[in-house]
């Protein structure tokens, strides 16, 4: 289940990255649809984090280590921080910032799965 959610989050992060790059290339300003897509991605990340914490607390999965916890916190915090800095910025460059952030989320989600499986 948790692997499925992580994969879905990675696919979604990739899609939002491409969408944000498209907004940067084409649009004059950042569309609201991009913000909504980022919120949906954040929802997926929160769901992934809750499933992970639930599995550890219930004893279904061994504690994966401090590195995993660091990636878990980063995965949930990074998008709200990025959106928070862009509240008064609707320029196309704010879409570029979101593209960079979503790409980072994709990498963090990948590392999250690797540390969960014990490969890193």
């Amino acid at each position: 289940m948790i692997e499925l959610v992580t994969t879905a989050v990675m696919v979604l992060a990739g899609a939002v990255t491409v969408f944000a790059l498209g907004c940067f290339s084409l649009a004059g300003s950042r569309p609201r649809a991009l913000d909504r897509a980022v919120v949906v991605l954040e929802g997926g990340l929160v769901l992934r984090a809750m499933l992970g914490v639930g599995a550890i607390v219930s004893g279904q999965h061994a504690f994966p280590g401090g590195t995993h916890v660091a990636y878990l916190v980063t995965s949930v915090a990074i998008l709200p921080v990025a959106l928070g800095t862009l509240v008064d910025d609707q320029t196309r460059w704010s879409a570029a910032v979101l593209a960079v952030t979503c790409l980072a989320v994709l990498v963090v989600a990948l590392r999250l799965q690797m540390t969960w499986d014990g490969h890193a």
Partner: protein
Amino acid sequence: MPDPTAGRGGATAKGSAESPTASGAFPLGPHRVLIALYALFTLAAGARSSVQLAQNAGVAPVAYGLSAAAACTYAAGWYAIARAARGRTALASVLLWVELTGVLVVGTLSLVEPDWFPDASVWSDYGIGYGFVPVALPIGGLLWLRWQIRRTRPAVIDDLRLEHDQPPG
């Protein structure tokens, strides 16, 4: 006497991509992407070096120490670019060259003297572990800085001219 900082801010408002925010707190524009990247790399390099130094400091002290130095450089670069966006470009022009030199020296040493790097640092192989972003980042920063200096220079000259033309008293 006009405030030079205010004058530069005024020049900032002329650029379409560089209009100040509604609150006037922070100018907008391409540097925000650089700031986001510097913030991410401060976090990534800082966390990486902290974990490595805390758990296996003896395995590759040079590489881990260089990763910590890279984290400090990114934090300083983050601050310097934020300053440069407001027209104070001197610190950024020094720090970005220091960063680029660091990436090139460490990247070259990691290829020429691999024994010195039993484990990779952030700048090993010119940042191959991070998709070569570590080497692209200071180059992008320097290109932006060149553009920023050209853009703000007329405003500084205007400020000095105003200051010179103003009658004493």
